Structures are given as structure tokens and as C-alpha cells.
């Protein structure tokens, strides 16, 4: 049976992702150091808790950044959720300027609050528009209707430079990238583990990809 690892940055709740994977009858494990060889896993999830800098510092300190790169180069499936999604990019401007994993070219910016009308964090259910009907997008959104709603909670958003890697967009004051799927790298700003049945379906799709992967 295929195994999925969830990286624990050492703070916040990663139990939700683990619970969702267990609910879907997957062998899922939480790892917090590189001694658990991530190449032994078939799927890898970067969950979405905490702030950018402590998370990327943790990945550096533990040698996860290089390990993740090797893992991805092997063609294995990676899914970054919320902060985990933002970590995939080159640079984030959350509390300063920080280097990310650079797996997806682009940067992470803050929502600009013009008045108290736009309440930040962007918190709650918002509908997404699926774009780029390519193979990667279709596998991510298999059995998901267009304009379906997912649960978001974030104050920063990612801007991928290569639009062809974007698989969905969402609107909150501005239009932003709500997910990417490019080859074996998936990322979503929304939380599939908190988005009810539709979110579980995306995780099922990820598990399917993990299972058909070599």
C-alpha cells in the first residue's frame, strides 16, 4: 500500500490533514525530521499552518528543502496546502522578504486592505473557477464541478509567473491564484481537509495520482 507523509513544521494543528487522509483509508504519517527518508513515501503533503518564515527556516534547518527537491525530481507527488502552497514559490513578502522552495516561479503578496469593507484574513467559503483544462488540472479537479466553493483562510496570496501552471482562480477584492497543478506538484490556497465532501474529493484525487504514480 502506498504511503503519504505530512511534514510537521513543529507548530500548529496538522491533525486535520492526517484525519482526512485516515478517513480516506490511506496510510498517512507525520514526519518532522529528515531521518524519516521522504523518498520512502509515495505522496508528500506540506500542510498549511503558521507563518512563512518559521516554516521555511524549519525546512532549511532540517534539510527538508533539499530533500523535497530530490523527492520532486523523482516524479513523486507533492501537495502544498495554504501556507504549504505558498512555500512552493520563490519569494514571500510575509513580514519581510523570504526565499521559498522555488519549485514554482512566483511570489507571495499581502492582500491590500483599502477600507474595512474587505475583511482580512480572507476567511470562509469562496467559489473557484477552474482554468487551463490540461491533464494536470483535470486530475486535480476530477469529479469536481466548476465554481465549487472551498474553505480559505489567509492574508497572503501567491502570484505564479507562469500562468499555465495555474489550475484555478478565486476572487477576493482581486482575482488570485487558488491552486496550481503542474506535473507532480499540486498546491491549493484553500484547505481541502476543511472543505467538506468536495475537499475530500480533491484529496481522493491526490491519492489516486499517488497510486497511479510509479
Amino acid at each position, binding site marked *: 500500500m502506498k504511503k503519504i507523509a505530512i511534514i510537521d513544521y513543529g507548530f500548529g494543528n496538522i491533525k*486535520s490533514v492526517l484525519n482526512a487522509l485516515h*478517513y480516506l483509508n490511506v496510510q498517512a504519517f507525520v514526519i518532522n525530521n529528515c531521518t524519516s527518508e521522504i523518498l520512502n513515501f509515495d505522496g508528500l503533503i506540506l500542510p498549511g499552518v503558521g507563518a512563512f518564515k518559521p516554516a521555511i527556516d524549519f525546512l532549511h534547518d532540517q534539510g527538508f528543502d533539499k530533500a523535497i527537491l530530490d523527492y520532486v525530481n523523482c516524479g513523486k507527488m507533492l501537495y502544498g496546502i495554504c501556507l504549504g502552497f505558498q512555500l512552493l514559490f520563490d519569494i514571500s513578502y510575509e513580514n519581510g522578504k523570504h526565499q521559498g522552495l522555488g519549485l514554482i516561479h512566483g511570489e507571495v503578496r499581502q492582500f491590500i486592505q483599502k477600507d474595512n469593507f474587505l*475583511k482580512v484574513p480572507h476567511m470562509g*467559503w469562496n467559489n473557484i473557477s477552474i482554468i487551463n483544462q490540461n491533464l494536470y488540472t483535470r486530475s486535480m479537479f476530477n469529479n469536481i464541478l466548476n465554481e465549487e466553493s472551498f474553505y480559505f483562510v489567509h492574508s497572503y496570496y501567491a502570484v505564479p509567473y507562469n500562468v499555465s501552471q495555474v489550475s484555478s482562480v478565486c476572487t477576493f477584492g482581486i482575482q488570485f491564484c487558488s491552486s496550481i497543478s503542474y506535473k507532480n506538484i499540486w498546491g491549493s490556497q484553500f484547505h481541502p481537509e476543511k472543505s467538506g465532501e468536495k475537499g475530500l474529493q480533491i484529496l481522493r484525487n491526490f491519492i489516486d495520482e499517488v497510486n497511479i504514480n510509479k
Partner: protein
Amino acid sequence: MLGFRVIPCLDITNGRVVKGTNFIELKDAGNPIEIAQYYSKCGADEIVFLDITATFEERNTTISLINMTSEKVFIPLTVGGGVKTIMDIRNILNAGADKVSINSAAVYSPNIISKASNMFGKQCIVVAIDAKNIGKNKWNVFTHGGRVNTGIDAISWAKQVTELGAGEILLTSMDKDGTKCGYDVDLIKIISNSISIPVIASGGAGKLEHFLSAYNAGASAILIASLFHYKELTIKQVKAYLKCNNIPVRL
């Protein structure tokens, strides 16, 4: 568009829902996990557990309840009631809750908000404000279920908790709570206009039109307890009504 959230609230004591409902779909009307699953299936956008117990033992029961609920319910879960320390917050989050609601403890030691916000992220820190009208456009913050007047102005308190790092405010009108005669629209409007974070409106809802007024006053979400509890309204009815009135909701 970002949906206006409909959030059912369950009062919990000793691991059971207070005044268990009798939804025909449920085997056990007092089982919070079953009810949470049921509400989730009916389209609830989030679930709130309000722990109204006092003893330490019962509090541990609530923690194991959160553990079990998070294994079966895949929408956001907020837990509040009697949260006093950073350790309480950590225990609740580690058990699988997504947000923690802090009330009295925030008033008596406001630095718990900034501490918790820095430690766990502002998105999981909800500050509950119980406000009572004391004059024209003036509300005070009350604690201990509305019994203690802190003398603190609700508007400046809302601004302060926002500064301290709250991610959301759960705003309850003590005057309207339980009356079913509608929200304190002025209160919602004035607080919502004063701060940049979402406001969850609570207290006073009795019929569908009231939800429209809460939305128009600037609320991002509504918290509903007894109306759902006693089946006076269903989540579907509320959402269908809001949708009919061009308010974005997740159906």
C-alpha cells in the same frame, strides 16, 4: 464570491449537547459528533462547540470530544467557553479544533490574544465580545454570561483586540440574545465599520429577515443556536432565503 457563513453553535456539557434535539436523522440526540456531522451534511459552513462546563474533569471530556469530532467532521470547528490560558488554547488546537474562542480571559488579560495570535496564527483566534447597550450608540463589554459589567467600551475593545491580533470577532448582543426580535443592527454596523477583521453576529435572530439585516449591517457570518436546535429553521432554509436575496452563500 466569499460566502456569508452560517454557523450552528452547540452548547456542550460533559461531552453531551445540552437539551438534545430530536432530528429524525439522528440516533442519539445528545451526541455532539452526530449532530456536527448532520449539520455539516446540511451545509453548515463551520461548527462551534461552546463548552459550558466548569470542572476540570469535564474539560478533559471536551478535549476527547474534539479529538473524535475532528476525525469525522471536515469543516472548520471552533471551540470556546472557559478558555483561560495559552495551555487551554494549545490543548484545544492539538485536539483538532481549527479556532479557539476567548471571552473573559481576553478581557482580564488581553495579552493572551497577542501571545496566542503569535504562537498559533491569528486565523485561529476568535475573541468573543458580549456587549450590552448603555446609551445611544454606546455599548459596554460584559463578562460572566452578562452578569459583570467591565465598564469597557465595546467599540474600543473591538479595535483593541484587532490590534492585538484577533482573527475574528464573535459579537453577541446581550440585550437581544434570546429575544428573537432581531439583531442589534446598530451594534453590528458600528463594530464592523470600526475594524478590519470579520464579525460573526450573534443574539436576537428569530426569523429569516433578521439574517438579511445582519448581513447588511456588515457581518461576515451568523452564529445560530436554538433556532436550529429546536428545528424552528433549517440551515437549508436560511441559505435559500439568503440566496434569494442575492447574498452569496455556499449551497
